[in-house]
């Protein structure tokens, strides 16, 4: 039932977005195909970007459950991620299944440009997932200072989703916004991998994208470790 309703919901969301933005591509079959692929793949990618990790980590801090991991050689962040992986998988499964079906039925619109494009797409997708979860970890860590951060999570989730192109195609953003986004990891977490998938990204852009994502992952990793240590100094065993 959960899978079925999730599949219908994904389909409805897709229909809304495509209906709304199709008007920008009327009379141009290439642009229409691009739009159809964009939202389909964007929904698949964004379905795996959930704020569950931030929620789980905050809960651990607030409830004091984090105590259980302080003396063990295992990171509570890894435990939080493991706890959220089932939820991520459930959310990811239905859009991915629908997308695969679409690839078989309409390969001319939904199939990858080449095997290489698919491979590089997966590399970006994996790095994007790592970036997203590091961002969520950072938000989760704020629970050391704020007893509840559910509202903060919602706000950040909305802002990030907007710039990840969940509501409108990133390629339709004004040039200035796109140029600013190219210095952030956001562009390379959803919109750019889609360009890679359809074989529209140059080798130079792919290398640049990988470098930018890796630098951001490094920065977020350092920031989350530093903030976690800072939080632990403030934390007492009864919870934050």
């Amino acid at each position, binding site marked *: *039932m*959960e899978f079925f*309703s*999730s599949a*219908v*919901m994904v389909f*409805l*969301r897709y*229909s*809304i977005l495509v*209906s*709304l*933005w*199709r*008007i*920008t591509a009327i009379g141009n079959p290439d642009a229409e195909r691009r739009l159809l692929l964009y939202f389909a793949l964007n929904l698949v990618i964004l379905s795996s970007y959930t704020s569950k990790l931030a929620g789980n980590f905050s809960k651990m801090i607030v409830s004091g459950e984090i105590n259980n991991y302080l003396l063990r050689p295992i990171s509570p962040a890894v435990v939080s991620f493991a706890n959220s992986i089932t939820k991520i998988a459930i959310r990811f499964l239905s859009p991915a299944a629908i997308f695969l079906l679409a690839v078989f039925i309409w390969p001319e619109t939904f199939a990858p440009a080449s095997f290489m494009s698919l491979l590089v797409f997966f590399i970006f997708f994996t790095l994007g997932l790592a970036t997203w979860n590091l961002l969520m970890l950072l938000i989760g860590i704020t629970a050391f200072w704020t007893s*509840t951060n*559910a*509202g*903060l999570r*919602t*706000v950040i989730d*909305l*802002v990030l989703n*907007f710039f990840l192109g969940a*509501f*409108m195609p990133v390629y*339709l*953003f*004004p040039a200035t916004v796109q140029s600013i986004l190219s210095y952030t990891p956001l562009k390379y977490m959803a919109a750019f991998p889609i360009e890679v998938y359809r074989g529209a990204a140059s080798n130079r852009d792919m290398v640049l994208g990988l470098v930018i994502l890796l630098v951001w992952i490094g920065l977020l990793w350092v920031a989350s470790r530093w903030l976690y240590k800072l939080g632990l100094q403030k934390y007492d065993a009864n919870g934050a």
Partner: protein
Amino acid sequence: MVLKSLKRYLKLYAIFFKFSFALFLNYRFDLFMSSIANLTWTAGQLISVKFMFETIPSFAGWGVSDLVLLLGIGQVYVYLTFSLLDVNLDRLAEQVISGTFDFNLLKPVNLWFITAFRQIAVAQSLSFFITAVPMIIYGLSLGNYNLERLWLALVVLSLGVVILFLLRIALSSLTFVFDDITSLKNMLFNELADFNRVPLFVLPRALEALLTFVIPVAFIAYYPLLVIRGEAAIIVVVLVELVLVLLAYALAKLSWSYGLKQYSGAG
């Protein structure tokens, strides 16, 4: 008699509101964060519309003001549901399972009333005033509309809200039979209601019919906007809505009575 009964229920609702307000004062930070979240969402939608019109000159004859107004009117239903209905109907399953629904049965008031309106999500209702209302005013100020038609649009919107409320009651009565209907509710009322952001004429005919006659979300934003634009025959729209109100009422009544028969006090 009717007036006396109405007065009694208004008085009861005022008590519910006082209680909910006292509860809300304990969670003031929630108000701040939910307002920021709702403002962010609204800003995101407005920016999307602005960006869209940088790409295209017109949306099949509709301008920025029309799409902004469509979003604003759609938000009225969204916040009404968030603040008045969801907070109560989402708890129904828990009450039925635990058996605490018995307390509702023992109260000498209308069962739908006590089930659907007992609590008010004050934080969400405040968001209505800082997002939906300014968006409607902004949309109206951008276009050249006949403001006298606003009242007619309000009638269409109100009837639309009543239809959807009755359908929600009908769906909620499934709680007495199945334990969890959350995903079904989300699918039918949250995801489909999102279509109120889309002018119906861009959708395939079948979907348009579904959103007009089956889960009639078309009446909560699209038709009110058509009325404001002077493009809908108000008599026809209201007549269709009245028929739908009657059908939805019959469905809600039947399914609720059936559901109640399945309920045993032990949960």
